């Protein structure tokens, strides 16, 4: 069956933007993008007044399988992705066992084929067990499908190990994704260190805990020439360091999460553990800085760091709760509400950070509506309004600080390899 998407505002950040063009999909590929395509027998999708964009890519999610299936599975995580408008996700290796050898990477790819509804690209661990000592078999991980390397929440603290990891990853031809955190400086902090941590009596994590590692990793990227992607940067200083590094020509890219451009540490008042996230929610100045970084191109990617946890784990005293919040199903709404509607980004700039940029960084053949490309397409209705309702979530996680928030601009259709997997905010059951 062919799909003919008619009359939408087609936004292909790689190519041209075509108002009111049609998109013909056949055999899982984009067959044509033209004005007024006529094709008998195709399923017609009326996209009038909506944006037709390349399938969105979230390059930073936690699918929790294998090992933590009570929090999320590849099935539920990819359903959440589809509901959020994402056709591809890259999943972090902090599973149990850690994705530090081919068997886990292979397992993830196979489970994704069996139970997933969107494309899944595994990220392999930098070091064995993400313990920060010995390099994982990076070439092998790549051979079985890994698209990048990261120890994510267990940042490589030894600079010599990080240096070798970058040298080796460069040889293998994949990027290193770094969660920048000096664990000693962060200590056992649970929120941003500042006025709010003083008021709430919670142990703070200084901005410097992130920034010293951003600086170190940039210096090591400069030394090794390895492409370095900085996950979820969140501070004024981090944005400045990335901007300066890019100006020097260092191969560094960076991402920001929707919660870091939307919320500040004031959201922690009341001790809602859904606001406990690492890096922590920062200050107004930091939010302004990441928005500026998004606008001037310092920050390349918007990624969710979708991190589901069970209610039992989160419904505890703030300092005992695990870090993380669920983000797949609120990301697009937050991008439209907080960035596009406020003029921080144009729709095209925003879509770039959700499609072509992550595809380029991960080296995956996605993020475009060019003829012949995989038919991964997201249709977004910029005018739709929705109040975030946890009972509608596809993710197992209920740990969202956005429950009850009104969002404008949401995905209404997700097409993966030519198949409609989400329509009108509901997953299409196979």
């Amino acid at each position: 069956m062919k799909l003919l998407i008619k009359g939408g505002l087609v936004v292909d950040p790689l190519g041209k933007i075509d108002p009111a063009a049609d998109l013909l999909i056949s055999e899982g590929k984009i067959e044509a993008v033209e004005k007024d395509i006529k094709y008998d027998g195709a399923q017609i999708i009326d996209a009038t007044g909506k944006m037709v964009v390349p399938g969105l890519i979230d390059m930073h999610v936690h699918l929790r399988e294998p090992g933590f299936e009570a929090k999320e599975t590849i099935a539920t995580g990819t359903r959440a992705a589809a509901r959020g408008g994402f056709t591809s996700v890259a999943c972090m290796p902090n599973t149990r066992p850690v994705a530090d050898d081919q068997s886990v990477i292979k397992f993830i790819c196979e489970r994704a084929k069996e139970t997933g509804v969107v494309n899944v690209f595994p990220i392999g661990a930098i070091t064995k067990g993400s313990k920060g000592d010995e390099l994982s078999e990076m070439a092998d991980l790549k051979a079985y499908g890994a698209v990048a390397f990261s120890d994510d929440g267990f940042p490589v603290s030894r600079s010599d190990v990080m240096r070798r990891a970058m040298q080796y990853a460069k040889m293998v031809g994949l990027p290193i994704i770094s969660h920048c955190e000096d664990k000693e400086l962060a200590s056992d902090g649970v929120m941003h260190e500042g006025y709010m941590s003083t008021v709430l009596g919670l142990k703070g994590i200084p901005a410097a805990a992130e920034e010293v590692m951003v600086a170190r990793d940039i210096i090591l990227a400069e030394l090794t020439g390895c492409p370095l992607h900085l996950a979820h940067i969140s501070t004024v200083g981090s944005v400045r360091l990335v901007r300066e590094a890019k100006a020097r020509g260092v191969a560094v890219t960076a991402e920001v999460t929707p919660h870091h451009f939307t919320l500040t540490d004031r959201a922690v008042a009341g001790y809602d553990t859904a606001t406990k996230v690492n890096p922590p929610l920062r200050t107004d100045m930091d939010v302004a800085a990441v928005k500026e970084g998004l606008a001037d191109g310092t920050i390349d990617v918007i990624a969710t760091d979708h991190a589901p946890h069970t209610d039992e784990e989160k419904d505890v005293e703030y300092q005992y709760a695990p870090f993380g919040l669920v983000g797949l199903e609120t990301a697009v709404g937050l991008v439209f509400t907080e960035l596009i509607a406020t003029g921080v980004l144009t729709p095209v700039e925003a879509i770039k950070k959700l499609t072509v940029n992550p595809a380029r960084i991960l080296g995956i053949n996605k993020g475009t509506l060019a003829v012949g490309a995989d038919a991964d397409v997201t249709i977004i209705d910029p005018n739709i309004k929705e109040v975030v309702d946890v009972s509608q979530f596809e993710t197992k996680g209920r740990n969202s600080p956005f429950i009850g928030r009104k969002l404008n601009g949401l995905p209404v259709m997700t097409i993966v390899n030519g198949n409609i997997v989400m329509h009108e905010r509901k997953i299409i059951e196979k």
Partner: protein
Amino acid sequence: MRLKNKDLLGLQDLSADEINLILDTAIPMKDIIKRKIKKVPTLRGRTIVTLFYEPSTRTRSSFDLAAKYLSADTIGISASTSSVVKGESLRDTARTIEAMGADIIIIRHSAAGSPHLLARTVGASVINAGDGTHEHPTQALLDIYTVREKKGIVKGLKVAILGDILHSRVARSNIWGLTKLGAEVRVVGPSTLMPPEIERLGVKVFTRTEDALEGVDVVNVLRIQLERQQQGLFPSIREYARLFGLNKERLALADPDALVLHPGPLNRGVEITPDIADGTKSVIVEQVTNGVAVRMALLYLLSGEEDSHEVTN
């Protein structure tokens, strides 16, 4: 007038009027404590539970006596002797206690915000008896009561809080309460024990004790926890005592009628010299008595029946 909320989670949430209401209500309560028969039927039939996840002598027994003087039924639950050691969550413990019919739950916990979690979980009134490094509102209320009793007024007084401000819930609650009532609050301690942006709470920050004590009406000395030195937050107890210990010379810089407060228990010879702790300016023992009176006032006000009972009957 009544308290606005069903819970007392911190002084940050209270208005000056509410603080004054509690302090005013504590005056007749103190009279009850002074009587030979220290019991009124005000809270007869009410059940009050103290849920303590941290060891405590004075706060817990103070609440316990306050409840008993008002004829409430009380039980005490300690984390070390309850299902908490079997891994029961705070939420489940709270639900169990509520199902048994508790009207007021008094909680002490090492995690900041625990009383908030409890208050969201149960319909009973929740009183924060100290949560981590967040607040200890009843300690601050008894401190302020003591100051007001001795000085007649709080507005315009200069109060210095001396010691480990970073980890002190007593300091935070005192700052909220005292500034709301119009006092000038100074905080002084080692720079490594000073919370970030504390000045935004409306206090003056000092790292030299002599500067902070100049002309103050009240010195509230905080207990220094000796483990902080092991954490590397200051070099030695000796140096701490030398720079921040309250002694005769330093106290001489304060107003001649200055009061000395301390939430206890004391490290004599560290944060305060014995002659000052036991001297004429010290009101440390009276703080303990006032603590019972303030907690009686609070239990009474939170029980929500101030209109139907005569307090002093």
